């Protein structure tokens, strides 16, 4: 569903790339956590997926389409296929809960009868049917986030991007939001969730992509927030070659066990015969 192939992103004023040679593949129906410290490139990655930014190098594919090559007039169609949830909810304060959710359908021209039937379903899904006529400022943070999720999901996107959706919520409420995202995922939606919430990641044990200074430093199935085993990342060779596909990076930097940071030496990349790390398992989802 999502393919990142040697993606780099430089901002004009930045002194280092926001993303550097990031490669990963997220399959249809996967649930993936995107972790890493602030400034590590998580939000940039999400912006690339939404075509709010274009990659400086490499390819970003969403549902098989090269996002950077989508004509401007077709970008809205991409965004209809990719729902978004943010830490600050981004609800419209002068609209009711139902109107906020309906807004997402109204502005893409969905017929009135569709809006009338789908919005209550979305509110039912997030458990807010009774609050349909209330305004966002009458709701708790968790409820507001649930409205935001309903709005993101009401158009039945194939991918749901969540950028720190629990960042403003207490642990119990965060867990509720997490369960909701899990429900949406189980309905077949691919979910990519950027988060700092270690306990949620640890509890869910889903695939984890970790960014550090713009570099993908971990891609671990059933991972935890902090890496338990040093694990280098495989990236595709930059040039054609039959042996570069499974080779490691020149130097893979991985966060070590809980509470510690370790540096792992990855395989040696190169044309015709990269060597995988002898102590790290093949990385799931690495792009070949």
């Amino acid at each position, binding site marked *: 569903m999502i393919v990142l192939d040697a993606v780099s992103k430089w901002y004009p004023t930045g002194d280092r790339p926001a993303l550097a040679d990031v490669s990963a593949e997220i399959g249809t129906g996967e649930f993936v956590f995107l972790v890493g410290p602030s400034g590590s490139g998580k939000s940039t990655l999400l912006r690339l997926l*939404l075509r709010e930014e274009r990659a400086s190098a490499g390819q970003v594919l969403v549902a098989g389409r090269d996002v950077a090559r989508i004509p*401007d007039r077709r970008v809205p*169609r991409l*965004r209809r296929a990719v*729902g978004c949830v943010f830490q600050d909810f*981004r609800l419209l304060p002068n609209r009711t809960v139902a109107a906020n959710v309906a807004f997402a359908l109204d*502005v*893409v021209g969905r017929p009135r009868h569709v809006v009338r039937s789908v919005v209550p379903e979305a509110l039912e899904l997030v458990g807010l049917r009774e609050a349909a006529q209330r305004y966002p400022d009458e709701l708790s943070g968790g409820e507001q986030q649930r409205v935001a999720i309903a709005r993101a999901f009401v*158009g039945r996107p194939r991918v749901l991007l969540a950028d720190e959706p629990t960042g403003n919520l207490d642990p119990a409420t965060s867990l509720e939001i997490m369960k909701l995202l899990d429900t949406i995922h189980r309905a077949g939606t691919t979910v990519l969730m950027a988060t700092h919430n270690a306990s949620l990641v640890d509890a869910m044990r889903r695939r984890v992509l970790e960014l550090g200074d713009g570099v993908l430093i971990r891609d671990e199935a059933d991972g935890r927030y902090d890496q338990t085993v040093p694990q280098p990342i495989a990236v595709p060779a930059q040039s054609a070659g039959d042996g570069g596909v499974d080779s490691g990076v020149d130097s893979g930097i991985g966060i070590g066990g809980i509470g510690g940071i370790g540096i792992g030496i990855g395989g040696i990349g190169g044309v015709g015969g990269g060597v995988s790390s002898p102590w790290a398992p093949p990385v799931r989802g690495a792009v070949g």
Partner: protein
Amino acid sequence: MRPAPLASLLWTGLRRNLAMTAAVIVTVTICLAMLGAGLLLRAQVHTVDDYLLGQLEVVVDLTDEITPAQRTALETEMHRDPAIVGVRYESGRQVYDRFRRDFHDSPDVVAGVRPGDLPAALRLTLADPRASGDIVVTYTGQDGVEAVRDQRALLDPLYRFLDAFTIGAFALAAVQALASFALIYTMIRISAHGRRRETAVMKLVGASNGTIRAPFMLESAIAGLVGGLLAGGLLVAAKVFLVDGQFARQSTFPLFGWSAVWESGAVVVAVGILAAAAMASLALHRHLRV
């Protein structure tokens, strides 16, 4: 987007920007009223033209030495000319009698001219009096022709006077158009800022550029429409109270009719809507990245 949600966005925007929208409407009204005034002055020029052209002739003054053969040849050529629909000969005496009639209020002028002072003439009625320039060029300098006078030239001072007012009205309209653009630009900037949360959400959920821009464009177009209607109202008021109420009693020329008012009003309303929307579009390119 369906009309109802679009109308909702539009109403919210207009309500939020009420003061700025009112300022835009006032400026656009003045701008369009000036444009309408210019159009009505042009209509007045045409009205005067149409009224007088039927009475205007090109006069070919003949030399005293013209021979009958030369005069016959000249008249024959004129009768063959498709631009000329009538040729009438006036002897020197007839020209003098006409002169005395026309200037009977100025006896001093009449006293200074004797019957032999005025040449005989051929008076030409043209198929298109506005094309008199070609006739003047064709017959000037021919044998037996002393001078060719286009009576339409006598109206030049009147036309210059009306043209000056027309240009003045259009110039004022242009200045007001600049002011309108500045205001619409500011209105869009403020509106885009006020709606940044809405537009951000619209972008995220996949609204098209046209949908995101539509409320802004419509807001501006509505200001243009209201300004156009108010300007049209001013033109109607000018027709009723100034043209028909004041000038009609004093003018020796016919004045423009209601059709000119309706035509100018329609132009003013259309220009108001389209120009305001176009100005908004320009401003949106700067202030709304979609």
